[in-house]
């Protein structure tokens, strides 16, 4: 499935027809997306959708079996030094060496990045409340995430890559991480790409959103456009319906009896005629949250796969 996107010339990350399989399982199936420069790009998907696999391709930690991945116009597998030197990465699992101290982590990481900002690193360290002599293994999960974020940000990377940064963290730490993300973009115009299954976070900070479901890209584009295209319509039927009504173009239909809710994508002009033909009327139109859009899109994608396999 192709989605409208900025031209690849403006893209910091350009992924074209990416395919990846692990054994018999297809993890990424012809995924194409472009991350515009200076934007916050949110990647959503359920557990096992392929988000981390996609991010690993961007980092060059996985080689594309088919398709291409370009970061800053470079192949991250062929030129890992050129690409990784411009990326700050925070992984989902805190994989920082437990034996290192905070100050050692910063000193070690600093050596790899000529743009390392000592003053900024120190400011972040104080802000995050990390004692320089503390060993990383003695830090809590939230503190380790902050240490990882510090190491990822202090060299002011052109691309900040966050893989489920707030997974397993308390709301205060999640807020700190999101604020760091916002600051990165608003103050310095850099690019952020982060994945999450917490859609409220994505909705708060993202300019662009891509939705992965079982390795397929089901949605991709500016967040505002996506939300504008998806609408929920409350329907009232003259007679109670024993099963969900079949409405062409509907992503999901929920309800019971006479009252039904329909989420549509881009078919709002055609919907009144369709609804009338079914003996119903539209009583309310609502905006839809990203969470509902995701659930509706994922459900539709699953149904489509089941139908095609039959």
């Amino acid at each position, binding site marked *: 499935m192709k989605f409208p996107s900025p031209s690849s010339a403006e893209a910091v990350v350009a992924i074209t027809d990416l395919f990846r399989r692990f054994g018999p399982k297809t993890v990424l199936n012809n995924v194409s997306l472009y991350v515009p420069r200076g934007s916050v790009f949110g990647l959503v998907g359920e557990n096992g959708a392929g988000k981390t696999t996609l991010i690993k391709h961007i980092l060059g930690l996985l080689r594309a079996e088919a398709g291409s991945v370009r970061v800053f116009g470079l192949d991250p597998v062929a030129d*890992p030094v050129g690409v990784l030197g411009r990326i700050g990465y925070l992984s989902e699992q805190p994989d920082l060496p437990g034996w290192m101290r905070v100050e050692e982590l910063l000193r070690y990481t600093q050596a790899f990045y000529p743009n390392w900002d000592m003053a900024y690193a120190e400011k972040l360290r104080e802000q995050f409340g990390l004692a320089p002599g503390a060993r990383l293994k003695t830090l809590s999960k939230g503190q380790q995430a902050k240490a990882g974020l510090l190491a990822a940000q202090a060299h002011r990377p052109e691309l900040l890559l966050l893989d489920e940064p707030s997974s397993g963290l308390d709301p205060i730490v999640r807020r700190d991480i999101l604020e760091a993300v916002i600051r990165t973009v608003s103050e310095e115009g850099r690019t952020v790409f982060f994945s999450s299954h917490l859609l409220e976070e994505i909705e708060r900070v993202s300019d662009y959103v891509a939705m992965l479901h079982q390795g397929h890209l089901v949605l991709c584009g500016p967040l505002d456009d996506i939300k504008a295209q998806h609408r929920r319509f409350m329907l009232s039927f003259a007679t109670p319906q024993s099963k969900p009504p079949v409405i062409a173009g509907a992503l999901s239909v929920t309800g019971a009896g006479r009252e039904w809710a329909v989420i549509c994508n881009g078919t709002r002009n055609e919907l009144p005629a369709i609804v009338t033909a079914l003996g119903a009327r539209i009583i309310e139109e609502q905006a839809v949250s990203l969470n509902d859009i995701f659930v509706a899109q994922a459900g539709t994608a699953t149904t489509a796969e089941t139908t095609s396999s039959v």
Partner: protein
Amino acid sequence: MRSPTTALAWAIWRRGRRAGGWAIACLAFCALVNLAVPGRLRLTETGQVFDPVFGFLMTVSLLLVFGLFNYTEFNSTREWNGFPYRLFSLPLRTWQLVALPMLLGIATVEVVYVAWIKLVLTHNPVLKPEWFAVLLGAYMIFYHTALWSLAGFRIARIIVLSLGGVSSILVAWLPFSDSQGAYPWLSEKYLAAGMAVLAFISFLIAWTVVGRQRRGGGHRRNWIHCLLEQAGDLLPRRNRQFASPAAAQFWFEWRRAGLLLPACVGFALLAIFGPFSWAFRTDPRSTIDTLVKIVAMPIVLAFAIGKGFIKPEFWSTNLSLPQFLGVRPLSAEEFVVSKMKVAALSVTIAWLLVLGFIALWLPLWADKTQLQQFLREFRRFYPHSWLAITILYFAGFAVITWRCLVSGLWVGLSGNRSYYIASACLQVLVPTLLSLAAGLFSDTIDSEIQQHPDVVNSITLTLIGWLLALAVILKIWSVVFSWSKNSVRRTSQYLLLWSGATLGFVALAILSPPWPDIYRLEHLYVLVAFLLFPFARLGLAPLSFARNRHG
């Protein structure tokens, strides 16, 4: 699964099924061979080759069973490798959690042992089979106790398990040591009872330790770790910035494994060779013997430590490149070079310790009577070059020590577990099988040499010469292939290094041929000199690293 016992037994088997499969395969193979070979053939000299081979494979099979019951799990965040922590939430008592793997292990090892006796060792039965059965069962319990109670003491556990393995041979020999029956406590009956009591005590220790871990104890760093960390906190720490990414990576690798070889060498010198040399300071024969062992010790240790050193993360059983390292903007070449440099520094310190010990021991308390006689002969044979030969030999030993640490990098960094295990097995199996073959056929070889000395020598030496020449050609060919993907700068640098080291070995070969060199073997030594310093395999290491990094 209908019971916790079945579930846990299935989990143990599922995790170690490969080791179990190989153990059964060894048994099955030997049983088939034993069945196929006629009994009368087994009584001939040729037939006697089967017994040591069966014995060797039986040992391998039993070791694999012990490996199957390596009932631990590694937690990287806590750096904890002990009793599987996730099992503590099961509705089972601690003694059940502890006893089940032990009992399963005992049952399995006894079944395998009995199968070997009944199916394979039928023509040359084991003496005192019940004693060995008791020993195997008891050591299964000791093994589990060491694994669980020393969780967190990685090095101590390795040492204890190694000493345990060696002690098992000595203990097994005890009932056979008193053939006259002078010491009743050395009889099989009393020793078996003693082992049973020790095994029960060991089980109680394991139960206590695992129980403590289950209640939250043992996860905290114990007092030794705390003491070491507090001592580390007091030591001055580096606060200078790194000059380059390569320098930072060198520091990282050094911190992980750089001090291990010098620490083990230092420990061996202080704890083993020091007291041993003092105890035998009046025995002139032991001086040369001890000197040989001291010189061999770093090489043997490097061979063992090298198995961990070649991995991306020394202390992990996972061969995949840690993501923390994979995202560093550093080329594969530089990662490999940093490991090689750490190995070089590690070997240098280790050999400085060895030389320092020798410099103290020989003048201060060694009996040098025989050593001085040997040195006099040595200076007589090589009057002009004895000093150069001595220096070159020690330098050569250091290079071989370094080779033991790094020559397997192309396998360890690849992330491929099958390659890694196959490589380690080959390095152990090939010399073992060659030694076995040499031992078995030594009489035949000796008689052939006595009957046809000139023919045997000329054929053998010619064959060796051709094989060495082929090996040198293969090495050069492999070098061209393996270094073709590396940068010109690094290739030139390493070529310089290889040239210098090989020149040293060639000089040694030319300066120190055996005297008299009746068979004129100097050319063979020169060919060997070209093979000693690793070249081709190290060129593949960056490629292996890149393959591991990029999935």
